[in-house]
């Protein structure tokens, strides 16, 4: 079942909602504004009654997979359960009703929460200070790189390159480029970890930073991290930690102790703020002492129990977002940290590693395992072994959807052909992991007996596989002015 668009359900006769009248004597729009300052044609918004609206969006909701209903083993995305208490605290009027330009005296509770969250995040990752301003992980990466650029600049050091491993998230090179750096790729060795020889050959006085995820996107801990840090620091460059995989070792070890100078965290991954179908998230950045002067403004400062926003930071990189970040997400993450405590966060990471290793073991005879040994919180398998049957990672992904599971991340990292990246997280039970492993076994068996069934999957969802090539062609036709169908939006058919 598909659902019509709100624009298609719209009825001209649907009454507008009842809203307050002005109740004062004031001018008409036409008395104040000239004709061409006013809107000539009303926007073509839908007209729906409230019951029609509620049913429309409820039907759309039923067409989604979500962590509240399905196992969501998306590698690198840390789709753990989102505790409902987080939602309850975020909507407290004492938080949700605050205007960002209220006087500091009237928002002491909000500032206290931000200050405590900063201290807690510092403790988890081992840094000096944290900015809570970035709205997402990529935004945090870019913020950190701006600080690193400012640091080098302040020393009269003009460094133009950022090193990024070939297994890195796409946001890493994109953030580096947006910060004005030239991106240089570092190769992975045969064991899936960064090649020290290749790193050595690319380090030079031009390098501003190495961006690293640890455990890397293959789920492997970079065992030689201390050597890597020493090599990077010896050339005067900084070490940047992509916190996408922080869920692997909270309470076990800390990026700061490994030698990382800047660390971003995804509150929507590690700290259970819900992902919202693609956001909002939050991407705080922690830094060591050398980078503190360059933090975005404002910071939250606490003196004698009084909290204030500090805007006077002359060496700051400036502001990276309006106001103080995604405050509502900060409240949720703080609630999670308070409820879990140091002991709970440590247990969460240990359980995440246990889940990943258990699941890996359950499917190691069914899929290829490109790397040996224990993994951390996620593992990468490969569907390469199904190639003789013409079955690809994408087919496995789609077949999982039919079996009630969201699909793992596929075709990433780029260094593994037919990659299937699985991150079960600590919040899944053994029974769920077993059920998922059974589904994989069933799919692999089907690849041998009836591969066509996998090419046809999914068959149980509102739509089957969508023809992206045809869609892209239609977009091209529109953008070239050869078609009226905009593809990227609805448009009323011209009469």
């Amino acid at each position: 079942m598909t659902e019509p668009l709100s624009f298609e359900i719209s009825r001209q006769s649907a009454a507008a909602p009842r809203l307050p009248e002005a109740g004062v004597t004031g001018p008409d729009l036409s008395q104040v504004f000239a004709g061409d300052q006013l809107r000539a044609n009303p926007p073509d918004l839908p007209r729906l009654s409230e019951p029609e609206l509620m049913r429309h969006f409820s039907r759309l909701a039923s067409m989604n997979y979500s962590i509240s209903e399905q196992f969501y083993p998306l590698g690198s995305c840390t789709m753990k359960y989102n505790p409902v208490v987080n939602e309850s605290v975020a909507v407290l009027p004492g938080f949700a009703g605050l205007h960002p330009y209220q006087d500091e005296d009237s928002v002491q509770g909000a500032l206290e929460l931000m200050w405590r969250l900063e201290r807690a995040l510092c403790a988890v990752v081992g840094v000096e200070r944290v900015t809570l301003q970035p709205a997402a992980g990529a935004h945090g990466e870019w913020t950190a790189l701006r600080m690193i650029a400012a640091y080098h600049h302040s020393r009269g050091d003009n460094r133009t390159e950022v090193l990024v491993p070939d297994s890195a998230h796409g946001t890493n090179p994109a953030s580096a480029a947006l910060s004005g750096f030239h991106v240089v790729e570092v190769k992975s060795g045969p064991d899936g970890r960064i090649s020290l020889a290749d790193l050595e050959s690319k380090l030079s006085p031009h390098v501003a930073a190495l961006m690293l995820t640890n455990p890397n996107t293959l789920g492997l801990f970079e065992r030689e991290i201390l050597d890597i840090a020493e090599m990077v620091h010896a050339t005067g460059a900084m070490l940047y930690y992509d916190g996408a995989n922080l869920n692997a070792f909270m309470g076990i070890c800390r990026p700061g102790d490994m030698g990382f100078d800047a660390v971003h965290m995804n509150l929507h991954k590690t700290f259970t703020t819900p992902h919202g179908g693609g956001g909002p998230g939050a991407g705080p950045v922690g830094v060591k002492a050398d980078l503190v002067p360059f933090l975005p403004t404002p910071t939250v400062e606490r003196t004698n129990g009084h909290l204030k926003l500090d805007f006077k930071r002359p060496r700051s990189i400036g502001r990276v977002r309006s106001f103080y970040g995604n405050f509502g997400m900060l409240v949720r993450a703080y609630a999670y940290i308070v409820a879990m405590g140091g002991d709970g966060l440590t247990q969460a990471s240990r359980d995440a590693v246990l889940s990943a290793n258990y699941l890996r073991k359950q499917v190691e005879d069914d899929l290829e395992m490109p790397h040996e040994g224990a993994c951390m919180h996620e593992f990468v398998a490969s569907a390469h072994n199904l190639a003789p049957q013409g079955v690809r990672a994408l087919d496995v992904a789609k077949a999982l959807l039919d079996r009630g599971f969201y699909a793992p991340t596929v075709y990433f990292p780029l260094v593994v052909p037919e990659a299937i990246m699985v991150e079960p997280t600590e919040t899944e039970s053994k029974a769920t992991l077993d059920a998922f492993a059974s589904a994989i076994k069933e799919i692999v068996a089907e690849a041998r007996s009836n591969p066509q069934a996998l090419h046809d999957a999914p068959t149980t969802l509102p739509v089957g596989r969508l023809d992206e090539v045809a869609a892209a062609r239609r977009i091209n036709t529109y953008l070239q002015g050869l078609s009226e169908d905009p593809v990227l939006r609805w448009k009323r058919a011209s009469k």
Partner: protein
Amino acid sequence: MLTAIGVQSMDDLLNDIPQSLRIKALDLPVGLSEHETMSQISALAALNRVFPDRLTFRGGGVYRRFIPAAVAAVTSKPEFYTAYTPYQPEASQGTLQAIFEFQTLIAELTALDVANASLYDGATAVAEAAMMAHIHNGRSEIVVAGYLHPEYLEVLRAFSEGRGIKVRKGTEPGSKTAAVVFQQPDFLGLLVDARALTESAHAAGALAIACVDPISLAVLAPPGQYGADIAVGEGQQLGLSPSYGGPHVGFISCRKELVRRLPGRLVGTAHDKDGRRGFNLALAAREQHIRREKATSNICTNHSLCALAASVYMTYMGPDGLRQVAEVGFKRAHALAERLAALPGWEPAFPDRQFLNEFPMRVANGPAVVRKLARKGILGPLDVHRWFRELKGVLTFTCTEVNDPLALDELVAALS
């Protein structure tokens, strides 16, 4: 589970982590029950002072408005708020279709061809639009005309610095200008001559970027009507609570010719082999997960759930409802401005300029006035002198449909 894995203990799984890096425990308190968590955090919330909606006259980018109950009823559905970015379209049609509707609503409202799936906020939307212009015409200067929100300007500067782009305040673009950015109505609530600014940008071969108030577009000329190339803005007023500044939602729309320069996610229609229409992420070749360092932007996570709230809000309102709230704010603001101007010592800061529902007044002792109102339980106007040296004593007031006529009386009485 350890036995199944084939190890003796949990520590066997952590062998790759050097012993020297291991920590004994996190330096954090132990965990709490849900009840204790709730109490502790509620206690922090109770330390904040929340002013009633009806007595909030402060805007400056975040506004108190009526939020239909339907908004929270939809956004609190776990199927929406606990889903991930819709990488598997067949299992994410709800999110994808909702985004497609959001794109259409924003494109309609701004009267431009195509809108994206959302950005973080109004400030980063301005910055992303400027980057689009830079990529499009290869020029490296952004001209900011008039009173752009000061925080948007700061974010624009931070973004530009990384790319070696110069940001200049002024109204006269030159041959190096990639785009002219203006806000309509501006940060003080005043209307600018959007058409003239757009024409001057075009005459210099630059793009025109309009930063707009989405509610105002129910009545004021939309960017597409005066020829702007890119429209951006902050969508907080479309059904989102102030929440101390976030999360809210940025939006961006543009002319057809610029679609390939858009940052972030875009959703389009596609069909399955049975011809059923579905929705899918489109033009991904612009994005970081495909193009890496050559992407148009680094954005990955955006603000989908806030965009969903905005979609529910706009769908609830429809064209007539949206016009109604815009007009009510307009009428009340003009009524209030007249009454304030009649008070001794008060005058309009820019008597010759038009405004919609936010307006600047000048008074001798601005900060004292604001403090006095707070003592009377009113979140009074915004003192904009903090950002603009030349605006000493200038306070901006905002009226919306939540500031009922009695609230206006209370405000005026408190100032008399």
